[in-house]
Structures are given as structure tokens and as C-alpha cells.
């Protein structure tokens, strides 16, 4: 049963996008993923509007104080097991807004994060790479035959996605 669930999750992860106070740079790149050039639906990834149906939460932005409460609420509404991907420099650490009076500075200060994709903004290829790495970490090929996959959430995986910027 666990294997089936993992299989279903890895083959068809539904992602929820939450902007926690981002500049739109990362957000537009996430939307660009759905369009013909990048087309993430070939990995079974579907953008899902409701937190209750989502497996993966894609968070962008440095998390403003006004959004922090809402981010926690959206995370709590998602069914277990759930994964959070912090997209962009702001979501990873606060980025240029680190230390500003109205930002918390980083998604991991509010909800646990499974993967970090740095970049300002990360290229669509980098986001695909990050999400695919997260998926393969959930279901590593070698451990497939081991009985009783961990039920709890996996330990946070830090992904360094090489960014081809500037």
C-alpha cells in the first residue's frame, strides 16, 4: 500500500503555488513551466489551486509578516505526507530583503522545507531539476525493495542547483 502511494505521488505530484511576498520573478517562471516550451505536465506535475489536494507546496518570496500566518495555514491544510520547495533566493534565505522590517526572511523560518532552489529567479530548467530531484529523493531507485518506507516526512534535503546566471 505504501509503495502504491509513493508511486502515485512520484508519478503525479500535484503542486500548489504560494507567493509569500515575492517580486513575481519566480512566480512567472513557475507559470512558464506549464507552457509549451517547458511543459512540466510530462512529469505528471499539475498546478493545483486547493491546498487540500496538493502534495508539494512551491513557495516563493521572502515571507512577509502579513503572509506568514497564511503560509502556515495553507501548509496545515495540506494532507500528509507533504513537501515544501523554497523557490528563489528570497524563499531560501530572504535574499535582498533579508533584514527588512516587514519580512520574516526565508520560508524555513515558518514551515519545514524539503528542497531549496536558489537563483534570482531560478531558471525554469532549475526549477524542473529541483522538483525532479525531490521526487527521486522521495522514491530512490535502490531503496525501492526495502519494506516499510519511512512514514514520517523525510529529513530536509538541501539541493544545490547550479544556476546559470550572469
Amino acid at each position, binding site marked *: 500500500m505504501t509503495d502504491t502511494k509513493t508511486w502515485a505521488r512520484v508519478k503525479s505530484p500535484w503542486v500548489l*503555488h*504560494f*507567493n*509569500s*511576498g*515575492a*517580486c*513575481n*520573478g*519566480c*512566480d*512567472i*517562471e513557475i*507559470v*512558464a513551466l506549464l*507552457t*509549451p*516550451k517547458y511543459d512540466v505536465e510530462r512529469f505528471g506535475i499539475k498546478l493545483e*489551486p486547493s*491546498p487540500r489536494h496538493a502534495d508539494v507546496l512551491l513557495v516563493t*518570496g*521572502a515571507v*512577509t*509578516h*502579513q*503572509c506568514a*500566518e*497564511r503560509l502556515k495555514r*495553507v501548509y496545515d491544510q495540506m494532507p500528509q505526507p507533504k513537501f515544501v520547495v523554497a523557490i528563489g533566493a528570497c524563499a531560501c534565505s530572504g*535574499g*535582498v*530583503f533579508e533584514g*527588512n*522590517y*516587514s*519580512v520574516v526572511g526565508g520560508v524555513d523560518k515558518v514551515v519545514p522545507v524539503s528542497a531549496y532552489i536558489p537563483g*534570482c*529567479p531560478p*531558471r525554469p530548467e532549475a526549477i524542473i531539476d529541483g522538483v525532479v530531484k525531490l521526487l527521486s529523493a522521495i522514491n530512490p531507485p535502490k531503496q525501492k525493495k526495502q519494506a516499510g518506507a519511512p512514514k514520517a516526512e523525510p529529513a530536509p534535503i538541501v539541493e544545490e542547483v547550479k544556476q546559470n*546566471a*550572469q
Partner: protein
Amino acid sequence: MPNSVDFISLVQSKFGDKVQIQKGVNGEASFVANNGLHHDILKAMIDADEKTGITSITGLDFGENLGIYYHIHTAKSFFTIKAEVPRANPKIKTLTDIHTGATFHELEVTDLMGVVFEGNELNGHFVLPENWPDGVYPLRKDINLSSVKLVPTPEREANKAAEGRQVKIIIGPQHPALLEPEKFSVTVDGETVTRVEPRIGYVHRGIEKTTELRTYLQDIYLVERVCGICNPAHAYGFVGVVEKILKPAVPERARYLRVIAMELNRLHSHLLTLGHAGLEIGYETVFQYFWRDREPIMDLIELTSGNRVYGSLITIGGVRRDITSEQIPKIKSVLADLRGKLPFYRKIYLEEPTLRLRMKDVGTLSRTDALKLSVVGPVARGSGVDMDVRKDLPYEAYNDIPFKEIVYDDGDVWARMNVRMDEVEESINIIEYAIDHLPAGPIKVEVARSVPVGEAVCSLEAPRGELFYYVKSNGTDMPERVKIRTPTFANIPSFLQTAIGESIADVPSNFVSLDPCFSCTDR
């Protein structure tokens, strides 16, 4: 309309010695007007020119006094009315009774600077977080922001249920129709919208305050991150205003390269919105088509600036990268491809019955209301107001480049989208012309790191409309005050008005026709 009104003589003759006139400061002139005269001056200016409106209101901290600068635009020029109020009793008369467009600007100054506008008082917070303590104003100079203690979120009016048979529907902050977090409480009677209350500030990152803590060079990268869609416009807004104080001799080639960067940005932004509007009415094919054709433009931006989104091309004194002769054929072929697809897209937006049904006569904003609310950009041009900063106050190379100003008179969602559709073609023309007429020479001059004491304003036509920057420098390498007025901030009031009386189902398409950008709005 030619600018026949001489506002300086008008103010001089009407107010005489009561108003001090500083020529050439912050636009054509600044009027120093205290004791409520700001109200009378604006009234006289609106009576003289119907296109007069408030672009922005800047709050400044002078120590003993708080300054309030009203940046006024007229048909073809810029003015500033300077007023001061004592810090101990910061109260000034509101302008909302003569110009509705002032409402949001006044509320923002109240929230961030603590100036009370009598007749337009703020209940709770406007852009600051709800858990921000009352009575702490981040833009004042004496505030130690690290010692601010957040308070538990109080329950405000907007969260309470509507009365009677009306129902309150909360759109946002996390909502499929909004890519960004912002809350709109829409009250409906049946399916008809009766009231819209916005709560902005979900993306407020305190950029205006942070610019005061960094150097001018660092600030370019910071203000670019106000908005991930129209970042070259923000970079130019800041650079343009600093250059007005520094006065470097920016090379001609750089002026053309800046225009190319800003027009490529307009192209990708308009294609994005034209597609997004399709998504909001459930016409996903349109979305996929436009976003498919937006990608080659993103490639061009990457080719010319080095990155898809944040190219950081524009810098003080010029640009950081040149367009080489090898790149020109590639740029031209991509633009020619896009031009070839335009007749098909134009046909969709002009004739497609589904689009017409969802967009025609939806969210109609009359010309009078557009002027009263001081809306900008495609929203104003869709309502028959011929306002385009590129034509009215040409900056950089726009003076040399021929292009058409697109104006539609219908005032509805359909007209606003068609303004953008036609501007796509104009942008292609501008880029092609600029490439063909690119002057030779250097692309950058060296500039000093410190900026002498001064102040200036700069306004430019960003993809979403007029973007306004005000910078006050104090002789160091960090600015004293930076004010950013973004186009969406000026356009949201029009949505609050046009949505009323229409179906709740039309709210998304009406709203997306403003091309809203909340990260711009909140800063």
C-alpha cells in the same frame, strides 16, 4: 491636446506672495504652499487643465516638521506642491474632495509616515502588516526598526460577515485567480457585486526604507526587485532620477540600448497579460499560445542582457552590455516571426465571440472617471485618455523614434486588452527602428559614487503605465529618501469602482485587465 496653460503664471497671479515658486525643482516647478493652500492650488490647476491629477504623494521626515510633497501631473508637465506640518500635530486637509485619485496615496502616507489627512482617515493598516504596532511609522528617521515588537493580529472590519441577504466573498490572499497574495472582500447580492474592499500589503517588503540604508549602486539591484516583470522600467526610473541630479553625459548609444531593453520588456509583459486574460476567462488555448510566443522574447532578453528576468542592464551613466552586430540578425528574425503571428492574435482579440462575450462591456470606465481617478497606462488609454509618458514627456531616445500612441474609447476590458495588443506591434516597430538607427560609440560613462545634495523626479511609461520615482539625496553615497509610485497602485481604485453592479463572475477578467502587479503595488 497642446499644453496651452502656463501653470507657473497661473499660480503666481492667483496666490502671489503666499506661494513660493522654485523653478526647475521636481518637474517644471515646485510650489511651497502651507496652511491649506495646497488644496486651492490643486483646485486651480484642475480647473485649468482636465488632465491634471495626483501622481504621487511623498512623505518626508525633516525632524521638527514632516514634509508632504504632492506630485502633480498635467497634460505635458510635472509639478510638485510642497507642504509641511509640525511633527507634534501632523494633520493636513485631504484632497479627496476635489480629486478622488488621491485616496490611496494619502492612506499610504498615513500608514508609513504618520501624517493624518483630515477627511480621509485610516482605520487599521493600509500596507503595513496587520500585526504591526499602531503609532510606529517605518519611514520616519528616528525609528529603530529592529526594536519594533509585533502585536497579535487584531480582528478588523473586513473579516466580519456581511449583513442581511448579502454575502461576503473573500478573494485571496491565496486564490487560483491571483498569482500574488492580496485580499479583496467582495460583497455580493445574489450574483451582483455591491462592494469591494481591498486589503493590500501582503507583498510589502519595505523597499523604500531599505533604499535609504544602501548605496546608489546597490539600490539599482534592490529597486529592480520591486517587480519581476517590469524590472528594466524600475531600474530606469531610479537611474533616470539619479542622473537628473548627477547630470552625467550618457552616451547616445546607451540611450538607444535602454529603449531596446525597455521595449523588449514591454513586449514580454504585454504577451504575458494577453495570455493571462485568456486564462482568467477559462480560455486556456489563448494562454498557451501567447506564452509560447513569449518564450522567444525571453530568449532575446537573455541574449541582450545576460539573464531571462533580472538582466540589470541599465546602470547609472549608461548600460552594462552592448548589442553586438552578430546578435542583430537573431533579434530581427525573432521579431519578424512575432510580427507574422500578430494578425492571427489580433483576430482572436477583435472577433472571437467567446472573448467578446466575456470582455465587451465588462468593467467599463468612462473617460471622466478615468481622469478623476488618475488611472495610468493601458487602462487610461483604453478609456480614451491619450496619456503616454513616451509621447508627453519623452525620455531617452523616444524623442527620435516614431511610434503611434494607441487609444481606444470603449473603456471596457476588451478595449484595455486591445490597447496592449496594438502596443505589441508598436514595440516591435520601436525595437526595429532603434536597432537600425543605433548610434556608434561608448555605452557608459564613469560617474561619481556620491550624489550631491538635491532632489528630482522621473516618470516613465512602464508596461503597466506611468511609473514614478522621486529621490532626495544628501551628498553621501546613500539616498535620503526614495519614493516609488507604481502603475498598479494608481489603477486599483478603478477596479473597485467598475466591479460594482457587475456579476461576480466578471471580477477576474475585469481585474486582470488592469494587468495588476501587487509586488509593485506594495513594494
